[in-house]
């Protein structure tokens, strides 16, 4: 079974044998930073391509098929296009807040991205309060969205931002509560520890019914967190043209766009890590031969397989459901999901005891 430990250890040894310890550490930090940014950008391109192809498949179309084989380079071409586009200066917009907003959104997204365990050895930020960190950092994005809506000085963006504020803050609750259910089960907030505890069986199966309920609540709430249909009210294109990012152009718009796709990946990755065992292969107690075969598959393939399965679920829902109305959206959260999540925590506590 291959894991990235081989590569990372080799780099570590190489650096330490050529320079002082502090210098090596510094170079490693920079390398990790670059690696995260590079993977972030490449994943975004990949996700955009996947979304367009899957959506085309749902809609009986072909999707991108002109640039490169099967249109594979289409999103690269789109990236180049968006990088070359003009950044339009908006008259009567607040110039500072307007510029900061898009960075806030993408910084929140990248910070969360760094804490995801891709592989036993590919895990940049592993706090002992990992889940707490994830929730805290990912909710920074809403500040960016509110600022974007406010600073554009446009009524559509304003309505979009207000909707977004109401929506993200509400759904954060269910999101957090459903993750807490698993924290109760595992007794730790550290992501690497959570993954290791699932070596016998994934929490989805280990945690009985409460884990299943938590998983469903998490899927719904996190989908709402990503602002994608049927919860795409903040940017409801048929009502508010493009919602909070109506006035953005060029790469500033690209940041919102990138963050949206990566957030979809991030919530899927968290779902995979917390409920589906992260990079841990599928193990069934007692089936030693089966477990042995499963161990042959490298961990990062397990991780990406599970994550893309969750991404596919998100796309499936995105492309088949119409949009909710704002009062229905809040009704769903405050009167259905949150009480259910609270009761579920209680159930899980009883199960653990």
């Amino acid at each position, binding site marked *: 079974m291959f894991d990235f430990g081989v590569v990372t250890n080799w780099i570590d040894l190489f650096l330490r044998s050529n320079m002082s310890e502090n210098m090596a550490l510094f170079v490693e930090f920079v390398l990790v930073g670059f690696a995260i940014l590079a993977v972030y950008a490449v994943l975004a391109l990949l996700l955009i391509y996947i979304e367009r192809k899957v*959506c085309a498949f*749902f*809609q*009986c*179309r072909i999707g991108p098929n002109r640039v490169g084989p099967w249109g594979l380079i289409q999103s690269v071409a789109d990236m180049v296009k968006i990088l070359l586009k003009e950044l339009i200066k908006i008259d009567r917009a607040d110039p500072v807040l307007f510029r900061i907003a898009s960075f806030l959104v993408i910084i929140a997204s990248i910070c969360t991205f760094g804490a995801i365990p891709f592989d036993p050895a590919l895990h940049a930020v592993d706090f002992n309060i990992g889940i707490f960190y994830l929730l805290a950092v990912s909710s920074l994005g809403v500040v960016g969205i509110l600022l974007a809506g406010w600073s554009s000085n446009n*009524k*559509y963006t304003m*309505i979009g931002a207000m*909707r977004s504020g109401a929506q993200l803050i509400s759904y954060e609750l269910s999101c957090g509560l459903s993750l807490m259910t698993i924290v109760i089960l595992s007794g730790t907030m550290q992501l690497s520890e959570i993954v290791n505890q699932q070596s016998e069986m994934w929490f989805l199966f280990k945690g009985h019914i409460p884990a299943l309920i938590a998983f469903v609540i998490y899927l719904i709430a996190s989908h709402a967190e990503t602002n994608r*249909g*049927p919860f*795409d*009210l903040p940017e*409801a*294109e*048929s*009502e*508010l*043209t493009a919602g909070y990012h109506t006035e953005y152009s060029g790469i500033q718009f690209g940041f919102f766009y990138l963050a949206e796709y990566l957030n979809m990946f991030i919530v899927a990755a968290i779902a995979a890590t917390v409920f589906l065992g992260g990079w841990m292969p599928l193990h069934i107690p007692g089936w030693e031969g089966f477990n042995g075969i499963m161990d042959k598959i490298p961990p990062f393939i397990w991780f990406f397989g599970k994550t893309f399965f969750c991404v596919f679920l998100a796309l499936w829902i995105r*492309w*088949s*459901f*119409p*949009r*909710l*109305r*704002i*009062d*229905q959206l809040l009704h769903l959260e405050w009167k259905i999901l949150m009480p259910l999540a609270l009761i579920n925590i209680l159930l899980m506590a009883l199960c653990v005891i």
Partner: protein
Amino acid sequence: MGMMNEKLSALAFAFVEENGKTLNVTVPKENLYEAAVFLRKECNCDFLMDIVGIDYTESLGTIYYLSNTQNPAQLVALKTSTTDREDPLLDSVHDLWDSAGLYEREVHDFLGIRFINHPDMRRLFLRQDWKGYPLRKDYDANPALNPVPLENELIEDMEAVPAVELKMGQPVETIHKLFEEDEYIVNFGPQHPATHGVLHLRVSLEGEIVKKIDPNFGYIHRGIEKMSETYTYPQILHLTDRLDYLSGTINRHAVCLCCEKALKLEVPERAHYIRTIFDELTRIASHLLGWGCMAMDMGSITAFVYGMRDREKIMDIFEETSGGRLMANYSVIGGVAWDIHPNFQRKVKELIPYLRKMLKEHHLLFTGNPIARGRMEGVGHLSKEQVISLGATGPSGRASGWSNDIRKIEPYAAYRRADFNEVLRQDGMTFDRYIIRLDEILESLNIIEQLIDNIPEGPYAAKTKAIIRLPEGEFFQRVENARGEFDVYINSKGDKSPYRIKFRSPCLTLVNSLIPATVGSKVADLIMIGASLDYVVPCIDR
């Protein structure tokens, strides 16, 4: 007819004559309001179909086409005129029929007649500072008079609303503001993804709740009625496809029928059948697109693509026979332009089972969806009285229980040969307006199924003269297009082009219905209810 005639004899000042199914009632302008109240209250003429403004050169007149929904085939044309060309004034009837408000603004815009007591005498289509009234015969079309503005203009200029009142027998112009200072006004349109064209809605919001709506039209007004006055009849046909482009074939059919009625031309039975099948195919295509657009306005883009995909099959059938897709350009005066393609019948017969199967899928994808049901049920209510008074014809009216299908009331072409039901629903909610379109597709498929195998042999068009001149007189033809009642009024002086031609746009009244259906709902509902009414803006901006 006799009943109405008898009742009208109570009006001493009215001159009544019968013209086919239409009862012409001519009154002097002083008695207009009295006659209107009488027709509304005593004769139960609760549906104001259209107001036609016309310049008789010696005077300016209006014709109010009315009908009683209990006896919808009977029409009453209330006529009046004023000889004052400097400041023509007529009484407004906007308090008797809700649809009159916008119609009177249209007459005001094009003929300069001001309506006393009408609360909103802004021009409907043209700019507020436009010089001249285009449908007057002495209109000066010199572009130097109305130059294209090159400066940025503030939208607040549109808010001053003039109105005319009569004080001590003298007209007094008052100006009031449409919106208060502190209202949160959002512009939906003219460029907006969900306005189905370039409609401009100014919406006053309180949070997410819609308080007031002010529709503004005219962004793509092409002056088709004015152009038609210089075109020959066969040329006019090409303009009709550009009115409501989604039911172009049906609009064109209406003008052909009107001309044929005037010429007393015997149209071959084969042409009737082909036209009817084309009309129904157009209706299906339009409803499929309407369904898809509504789904898209609610955020379900997949449903839109499905609708477009199925509509494409109909466009292919059109293309094979007529060469046109969206605009088939197929009917001509006397029949159709050429015979159907040899594949036509086979392809249509293949389409019928396909669409029935696909409709089941559409129901599965969208109608049964809990989110879609939750959005559509209990929202956007229009009562039967409201839709009649607003003149919201077609599927939107039928969803509220108003039986208004012209195909049943006054069967034209081959509709008599087909056995079909008029789909009616009673609740008048957004969901009813949604589902009624899908049910109408099934009904249209039934009609086509009955006709497609029985297209009689024979010529596909009657012989007409090289230059078509309509005899002197007034001609009126009603048809049912995909959105409602489409009427053509032609006033001919015996020339090769009409003296005045007027189209009743079903969409203008539908936009008007948006206001009572939406006020008090959310912004998202505004878009959805608009989509459920399914208006097409080029139909309004003729």
